[in-house]
């Protein structure tokens, strides 16, 4: 129960009215004083009673995409035998206004119900925009009332109205990426044949050699020639993708949705989605406060796992990007394409280039996305050639990397499909 200042003001008026009534032998003064006392009593006791014997239910999706609108269905049931008036429903919705304010735990007003007859149910919908990716805990829904005069507010939190909501990063369509294949993968024993149409194509037969995948033995020909014969394939799209995300704190510039991290995560999610659609293997590595490591895999379930991880990724790490690249270099397969999201401060360029050289030496292809840091600072006027002229960009070109430059406000769809 929270008393408002007008309660004390009315208390003062009531005391003055009683004082006047006792001084003047007048019934009207007594009645006015009684009316003020009645207002105080009803203002104090009624709200507390109004929020009792009510049940609230909130139903809504548990997953959504950034930028989508989600609809929550609210149901309020009056289990009492008298009507309820001027009920206010509040909810803890940390994702509302998260783009501007960040994750906020303040109560949001879902709506007010002017009158709820006894035993009745009131249903309504609340449509909200999922502004920022993340994992959010919603609830509890609170019921409040300051009926009738707003002198005091009674509030209670309802049970069983907790819920979680995962908002996945917004992805943009990618038609094609300049990825390189990994021809050495196809005949390894651990690999099955590519499943997707066009992933590999039959090119001929030859005699079996030590180390060939026994699954590729063509038994009818073997029986006919009395010699082990294996099928040969022409690899067409057996590219593998390694997404290296930089979660160092100083690599994230800007605020809200227009920070470099948000762009990086959007790109990572979109590229992972592209890999999933193309039936490619993909994996993710990042060093935040905790290491984000998603093993190689493909398919929708794998993509879901990547989205789950990217939804909660935050720039809370301290490890320089060079460490991440070095670890990838030690584990990557020859021919694997590594997606680099480079937004770290310039003083680390030398170490990063060294790690990239190691990565290249392991036979990995580099697909670098360079963030124009200056453009992400609030109010900054970016120079178009600042990134192109940087030593990092020059080094990447020397290493044969495919480079893209991203600035704040860029249309990523156009950038990746041009």
């Amino acid at each position, binding site marked *: 129960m929270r008393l408002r200042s007008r309660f004390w003001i009315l208390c003062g008026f009531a005391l003055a009215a009683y004082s006047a009534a006792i001084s003047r032998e*007048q*019934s009207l003064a007594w009645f006015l004083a009684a*009316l003020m006392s009645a207002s105080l009593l*009803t203002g104090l006791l009624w709200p507390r009673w109004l929020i009792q014997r009510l049940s609230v239910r909130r139903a809504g999706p548990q997953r959504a995409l950034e930028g989508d609108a989600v609809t929550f269905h609210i149901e309020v049931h009056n289990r009492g035998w008298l009507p309820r008036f001027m009920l206010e429903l509040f909810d803890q919705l940390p994702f509302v206004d998260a783009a501007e304010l960040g994750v906020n735990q303040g109560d949001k007003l*879902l709506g007010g*119900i002017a009158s709820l007859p006894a035993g009745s149910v009131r249903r309504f919908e609340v449509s909200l925009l999922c502004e920022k990716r993340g994992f959010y805990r919603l609830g509890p829904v609170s019921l409040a009332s300051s009926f009738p*005069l707003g002198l005091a507010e009674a509030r209670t939190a309802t049970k069983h109205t907790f819920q979680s909501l995962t908002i996945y990063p917004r992805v943009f369509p990618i038609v094609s990426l300049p990825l390189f294949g990994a021809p050495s993968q196809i005949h390894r024993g651990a690999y099955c044949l590519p499943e997707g149409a066009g992933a590999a194509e039959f090119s001929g037969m030859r005699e079996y050699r030590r180390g060939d995948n026994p699954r590729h033995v063509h038994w009818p020909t073997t029986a006919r020639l009395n010699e082990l014969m294996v099928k040969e394939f022409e690899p067409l799209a057996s590219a593998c993708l390694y997404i290296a995300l930089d979660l160092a704190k100083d690599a994230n510039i800007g605020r809200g949705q227009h920070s470099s991290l948000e762009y990086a995560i959007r790109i990572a999610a979109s590229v992972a989605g592209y890999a999933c659609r193309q039936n490619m293997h993909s994996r993710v590595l990042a060093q935040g406060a905790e290491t984000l490591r998603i093993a190689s895999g493909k398919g929708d379930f794998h993509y879901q796992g990547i989205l789950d991880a990217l939804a909660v990724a935050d720039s809370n790490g301290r490890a320089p990007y060079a460490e991440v690249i070095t670890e990838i270099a030690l584990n990557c397969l020859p021919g694997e394409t590594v997606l680099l999201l480079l937004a770290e401060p310039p003083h680390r360029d030398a170490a990063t280039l060294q790690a990239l050289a190691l990565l290249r030496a392991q036979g990995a292809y580099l697909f670098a996305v360079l963030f124009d840091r200056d453009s992400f600072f609030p109010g900054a006027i970016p120079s178009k050639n600042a990134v192109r002229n940087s030593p990092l960009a020059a080094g990447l070109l020397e290493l044969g990397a495919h480079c893209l430059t991203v600035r704040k406000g860029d249309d990523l769809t156009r950038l990746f499909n041009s």
Partner: protein
Amino acid sequence: MSNVTLFAPLYLGLFAAQLLAVACNAFLDIGYGGFEREMLFWSFVFGVTLYVGWRQSRKPNALGSAWQKGVLFFGLALFVLVFLPLWGLPRAGLYLLAMLQASYNCVTISGRQLRLGLLVSLALVLFAASHFRADWTMLFYLAPYLVAAVYTLVGEQIHRRGNDLRQTSLGRPGGKGQGVAILAATAAIMFVGGSLYLITPQVNWPYLEWRFGQQSLRNPGGGIEQDGGGGQTGAGKADDGGEAEQNRGRGGAPVLLGGHWPNPREMRAAARRPHMPRWQAAAIDRAADFSESARQILQPVMIGLFDWWEWLKRWLREHWFALLLGVLASILAAMLIALRAWIGEIPWVVWLLSRWDYLNLGVFGRHSAGEMGARQYYRAMERLFTLTGLPRAPTANTREYLADIRRRHREDVLRSAAELTRLFEQARYAAQPVGEQSQHSMRQLYRALYRLQR
């Protein structure tokens, strides 16, 4: 808090309040026969000016200000040419105040202006009610005025809050039922206010000084106040005093000035006053009939109640000491119960009790026989879970408490708790008596829970 547009019912409430406030004043001069004409005039003035105000609240323009000035000049002219010669001060000043309010009505578009309008109407009513000619017959205008004022105040508050909610809320549950809410709030405040008024002893300083302070006259100043025209000064003072006597003589008991409620004879006399509106006279006659019949019906009941009251007073005088002891014992018992409940919530007391439970029930097995033993084991289990931050809510039954345990504890703890709960329910609600085997099982389960929880 937003500056919201007032809605039409609030203007109606303000109109009713202002008109009834002026009616209270006009009623004082009902003997002169101009009551209906006055009411017609004020209805027109307040109706037109509030209509202009309502139009302004929807679409403000310069017309409201022009109307305000026009009504103001008209009011000043009336004051000089009509009110002053007719009534003199302070009544003429009061009607000037009413005209000023009427001019202000033309630009009344916000809650603050609406409340100011109500305040002015209250000033008019207070003036009328404190007049020496004000008696119980004025209640026909005073009571509706209070209802209208409360309705308008409550309506403005609820409408404003509803508007704020609509503007700031994420959803749109619908604002249906606001009218019902306003009526319910008005009725509740009037009912509680009326009840408080009825039970409040209406004492005054002279009475308190006489009763509890120094010896003084029983009602010093009261007579002066009434006979002197309610403290008013002005042209009509000398004549008014004489008329007050006349009023009292013909049954007009000044109930608004602390008088008694009239009897049926006095009511009928009031209904026959000259120029009393016909509907009011008929209503007073009906009230007198009702009062008579109610008195006939209630007389035996009242006599019975009076006898009972006398008997109660006599009994209290005879047994006052025993009663005092009884009250003290009740207070002590209540305090002991509260203390027990309070101690039961202190963590270290719960810890000690749980150890005692284990020693008494778990180690020595000194439980009561039958259902009481099952209760002891179940209560001991509750204490164990209270220690882990899971006390049983006063409203939770055994199943709900078990559901809470399920959310918080491991499978092995849950299994023991579920079995102990089942045995407790069996002992508590089953037809057959609790066997030794069941109590033994409960003891084993309790011991297991104690070890798991430790």
